[in-house]
């Protein structure tokens, strides 16, 4: 699982707004019992995939923001090969905690939606740390 990102922060009103561009290359597998098997078994209807950023700031001990999500239906190829993706949702911080934040971690996770039964949330192995710069960009277009 690999993600590559490029980023800068821009001031919006009074909260930091982060911009991240990313690539995702992933194989979604079922890692139960240490064996890797097909994720789409007879009782898996769909996967709700989401890329989330997790970080700490002065204001908040834990922040999690979903940047991008995708629904993968049974029958779809459980592989992702995405390049130059922009985040689907605005990456606002609750304050100014993105500026100079060196430890923003991006993780890919998914909610397994069965035909019937339990709804587990699974976190993919592999994550990427994204450092935000110390200065704001004021003119870059996104």
């Amino acid at each position, binding site marked *: 699982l690999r993600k590559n990102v490029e980023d800068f922060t821009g001031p919006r009103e009074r909260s930091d707004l982060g911009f991240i561009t990313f690539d995702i290359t992933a194989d979604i597998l079922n890692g139960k019992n240490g064996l890797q098997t097909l994720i789409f078994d007879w009782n898996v209807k769909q996967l709700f995939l989401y890329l989330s950023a997790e970080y700490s700031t002065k204001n908040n001990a834990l922040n999690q923001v979903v940047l991008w999500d995708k629904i993968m239906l049974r029958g779809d190829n459980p592989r992702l090969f995405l390049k130059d993706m922009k985040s689907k949702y605005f990456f606002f911080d*609750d304050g100014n905690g993105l500026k100079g934040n060196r430890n923003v971690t991006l993780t890919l996770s998914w909610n397994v939606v069965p035909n*019937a039964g*339990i709804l587990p949330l699974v976190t993919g192995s592999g994550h990427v740390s994204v450092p935000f710069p110390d200065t704001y960009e004021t003119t870059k277009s996104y």
Partner: protein
Amino acid sequence: STALLFFSGSMEPAFHRGDLLFLTNRIEDPIRVGEIVVFRIEGREIPIVHRVLKIHEKQNGDIKFLTKGDNNAVDDRGLYKRGQHWLEKKDVVGRARGFVPYIGIVTILMNDYPKFKYAVLFLLGLFVLVHRE
């Protein structure tokens, strides 16, 4: 734990109208992005079942979070009370842990077992008669 009958289209294609959702409401369970929570907006009776999109949690455990229906184009801020930008732990009624496609099963049974279909129709008929005002 409780069960709730789901009647909205905002979480398709995961859940459909008529699905039966099973919830837990353990207060110790942390609220994290990706989870499906059932919450109530102050002043409204009908709970909403959507996914957590953003959380900001303080050291002491105080948390504020934002939700969105999978099938909706925008997040739920427009649904919250006027002036309310976030949900808090107190708004949470439960967490969706599992579900059964309720209507689906009934329809399948009705198709495969005609006797079952007649029984259902008969019972429905009785129900209507008994509740006629």
